[in-house]
């Protein structure tokens, strides 16, 4: 096994301590942290607080598990083979120091705890006749498995056994209860592979020079070990909350970052924080050590927004998507409120799918909220259901909860009804942007695919020399639109809790502007994707290139200024929250 001395790192070792991971489809990002605000001020602000590192699960396993074993073999314990070192590390919770100490101080105990025998004889046998003591089946022609102890069981039983054992992330031992022997990591995978349906792409294996890391590339036991290791260190590691994303972010260095709920005691935190904020007048009486930030103005630039290796931004504190301009505590209140009021939200869902003019039902496919009814051609806004043409005028506000409307309601109805109305107003806008985001993503995905096939066709026929950088603007548009929508979405949560101070109008105007450019960008994307334009979509893309680029910039700028408006407003206390709403 000594050939394993030559290691082929999956990524450059020199850069491993910094950010050198290539994300799947995005440009390399050498920033430690990726805030949506591009101003350098904010980056330094965050890096003053903490330093983060991005990992994919695979990179995490490579570096912390496999490379740790390789390093031990190369430096301190060259007499051990890699499999045994992995078992020792696994047993001692991946602490290399502990392995070295135990190896020299108490070798026999370590080997015994790890279930590593002096002589190894692990075999998968083919048997013509076998009766298994676990399942009690009498087989003719079956594979069996045994470790060096000779406790033999049929391969079906071993496979089911491994599957159930995989959940706890620990080393897996011989089935026999009095036997402590460990099944080595590679063998567990070998048994899984015997039952696996999907055959791996041979081309991929052909190009891959077998290395320590590639041999363990799909090891399910190591993945399960990684999961339980990471979950046991909740303040140090956070999984990316984006659906289907298996990336994580590590808090490498914490200078001054204040994390709220390391212990997952979310509700307790919430009630504590809420009660302090609910009644600011009691601040002076309250124990200040408990909530040190209450007296100071809120500074949202301190929100620990990080991004995973595939560029999903999220808040390290809440482990929730990038929720700027809202501070973390507002997000918590909002999420709780939405949970409590989910029935009302369902009502909206069920009742807002008809054209305001002809009342025909309307299906919303894309993300754009500038709607045109297919039956009567009426153009309207999906959010406020008013005519689209008036949206451009100076006096119209789609985002503002009409005060005269509110006054009228107040005269006639109970206070409770107003607050529900008010909540619905903001919730609807919040929810619409959330679902529009999904629509936008679908549309942009399609465009991207079309563009890629178009380009490969072109280069095959030597028709044009479009390069990837020529269509970078599409990816930029994708990113700007998604991020813009997210900020917009959370700005309605912000709006819901915002006190009616004079500066609030400035916030709302900035919000309206972002709303406008986001919808314009979304509209172009939707038009390019329209079935009618199927055969000339690439032509449309290139034709709209200029408009797309300028709108992308406008959205990014609009997003930045909305967050900055909130940031400075809160800092200077021209914007304030009212959590008693």
């Amino acid at each position, binding site marked *: 096994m000594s050939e394993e001395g030559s290691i082929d790192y999956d990524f450059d070792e020199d850069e491993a301590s910094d950010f050198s991971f290539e994300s799947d489809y995005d440009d390399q990002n050498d920033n430690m942290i990726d805030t949506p605000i591009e101003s350098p001020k904010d980056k330094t602000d965050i890096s003053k607080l903490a330093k983060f590192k991005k990992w994919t699960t695979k990179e995490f396993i490579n570096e912390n598990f496999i490379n740790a074993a390789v390093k031990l073999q190369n430096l301190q314990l060259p007499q051990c083979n890699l499999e045994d070192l992995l078992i020792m590390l696994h047993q001692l919770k991946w602490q290399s120091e502990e392995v070295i100490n135990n190896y020299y101080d108490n070798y026999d105990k370590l080997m015994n705890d790890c279930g590593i025998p002096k002589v190894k004889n692990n075999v998968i046998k083919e048997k013509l006749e076998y009766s298994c003591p676990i*399942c009690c*089946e009498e087989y003719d022609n079956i594979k069996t498995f045994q470790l060096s102890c000779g406790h033999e069981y049929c391969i079906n039983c071993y496979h089911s056994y491994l599957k159930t054992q995989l959940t706890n992330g620990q080393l897996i031992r011989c089935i026999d209860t009095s036997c402590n022997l460990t099944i080595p990591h590679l063998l567990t995978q070998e048994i899984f592979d015997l039952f696996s349906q999907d055959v791996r792409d041979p081309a991929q294996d052909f190009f891959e020079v077998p290395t320590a890391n590639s041999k363990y590339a799909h090891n399910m036991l190591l993945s399960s070990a990684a999961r339980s290791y990471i979950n046991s260190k909740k303040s140090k590691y956070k999984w990316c909350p984006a659906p289907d994303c298996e990336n994580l972010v590590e808090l490498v260095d914490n200078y001054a970052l204040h994390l709220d709920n390391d212990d997952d005691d979310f509700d307790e935190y919430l009630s504590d924080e809420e009660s302090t904020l609910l009644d600011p007048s009691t601040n002076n009486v309250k124990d200040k050590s408990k909530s040190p930030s209450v007296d100071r103005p809120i500074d949202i630039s301190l929100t620990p927004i990080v991004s995973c290796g595939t560029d999903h931004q999220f808040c390290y504190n809440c482990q929730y998507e990038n929720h700027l301009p809202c501070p973390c505590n507002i997000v918590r209140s909002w999420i709780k409120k939405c949970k409590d009021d989910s029935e009302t939200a369902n009502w909206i869902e069920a009742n807002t799918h008809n054209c305001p003019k002809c009342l025909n039902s309307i299906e919303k496919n894309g993300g754009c909220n500038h709607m045109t009814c297919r039956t009567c051609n009426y153009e309207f806004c999906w959010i406020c259901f008013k005519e689209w043409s008036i949206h451009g005028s100076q006096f119209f506000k789609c985002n503002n909860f009409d005060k005269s409307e509110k006054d009228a309601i107040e005269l006639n109805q109970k206070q409770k009804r107003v607050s529900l109305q008010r909540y619905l107003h903001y919730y609807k806008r919040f929810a619409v942007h959330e679902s529009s985001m999904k629509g936008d993503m679908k549309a942009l995905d399609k465009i991207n695919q079309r563009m890629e096939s178009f380009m490969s066709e072109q280069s095959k026929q030597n028709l044009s020399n479009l390069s990837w950088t020529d269509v970078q603007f599409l990816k930029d548009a994708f990113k700007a639109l998604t991020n813009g929508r997210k900020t917009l979405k959370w700005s309605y949560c912000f709006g819901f809790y915002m006190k009616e101070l004079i500066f609030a109008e400035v916030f709302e105007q900035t919000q309206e502007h972002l709303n406008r450019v986001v919808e314009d960008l979304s509209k172009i994307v939707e038009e390019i994707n329209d079935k009618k334009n199927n055969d000339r979509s690439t032509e449309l893309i290139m034709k709209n290139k200029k408009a797309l680029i300028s709108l992308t910039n406008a959205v990014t700028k609009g997003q930045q200024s909305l967050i900055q408006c909130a940031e400075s407003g809160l800092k200077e206390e021209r914007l304030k929250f009212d959590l008693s709403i």
Partner: protein
Amino acid sequence: MAALPKRIIKETERLISDPVPGITAYPDEANLRAFTVTMNGPDSSPYEKGIFDLELYLPDDYPMCPPKVRFLTKIYHPNIDKLGRICLDVLKDNWSPALQIRTILLSIQALLASPNPDDPLANDVADDWKKDEPKAIEVAKEWTAKYAKAKE
């Protein structure tokens, strides 16, 4: 219902033909994965002379996962709670498919002979046990006489 695995058939046959001393276990006619169990309290324990009813169920993934066992008779024991649930390592993390129904039942009987108040499930009982063991043993005896009577 899917066919009963050979393993369960074999174990059931042996439980009936070669029963564990002081324990009976019969499968329900309607569901062969569900067993009605009686267990005699071990001699020279506070549960001596008591006859305890238990239910035992073999989940779908048995023997990869342990059987589910519960006392039906009320019992005063630091590792058994009000609902009859049992705190026993082999019923949880230390389960192995190499163990059997009979080994599990024997382990439960052994738990009655030597209660372990340092790994409690019923906290109040465990506290009583640690504070005043002779008194706790008296209560366990009373409960045994009161609830764990043989049926006519």
